[in-house]
């Protein structure tokens, strides 16, 4: 089971901040993850948008990057504080 988290506006857009999924066999990297999950969540492309970055186990990754069913996968929209 992978833990998938959505941050900032993405939690509002997909309707949850955190969920677990058993990743399908053919989801092996961030590219296949994005396509599959955007369909699951009816994201209408928002989870495909590279402006929304992915962290795998608390590291923001250069994509495509491998993912596995034991990972924590975070979707991070554009950031900014201050």
């Amino acid at each position, binding site marked *: 089971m992978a833990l998938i988290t959505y941050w900032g506006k993405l939690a509002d857009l997909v309707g949850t901040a955190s969920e677990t999924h058993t990743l399908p066999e053919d989801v092996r990297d961030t590219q296949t993850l994005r396509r599959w999950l955007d369909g699951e969540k009816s994201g209408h492309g928002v989870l495909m948008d590279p402006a929304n970055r992915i962290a795998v186990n608390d590291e923001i990754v250069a994509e495509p990057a491998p993912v596995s069913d034991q990972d924590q996968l975070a979707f991070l929209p554009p950031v900014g*504080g*201050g």
Partner: protein
Amino acid sequence: MGEVLTSDALSPGELLGAFQSSLEVSGGVVSFCGQVRPINGAGQTVTTLHLQAHPSLTDAGILNAKAEAHSRWPLEASMIRHRIGDMAPGDTIVFVATASAHRRAAFESADFLMDYLKTKAVFWKKEITDTGAAWIEPRREDHSDYARWASA
């Protein structure tokens, strides 16, 4: 949450006082504090600003930026405090202070840290106004401000 992030109110005067009394040799201290503005860029009345941080990425990124500031400028010390959670207009969101023997190093490094915090630090901001709620992202000028530091 480490020493950078806090959900308690920030008092810039007290933070500057504490920072300064910790210094031994610096001739110059620059501070920046950012407050929640009562009216947003679209002229709407802001009631609440909500800041969300990530439990590990936010702190790690800020500590990296702090280390980079210390490697680029001859600083005796620096301090970064960033509020998270719900804030009201007038509340301090962020406090940054830098100390150096050289006034220019203190100004530039505080400026650099603020540009980092505005565009690269892992925060998400939701603004609640009298007409609704909206997630807000850095302005174009914030990104071009940060880009100034790439060539140096």
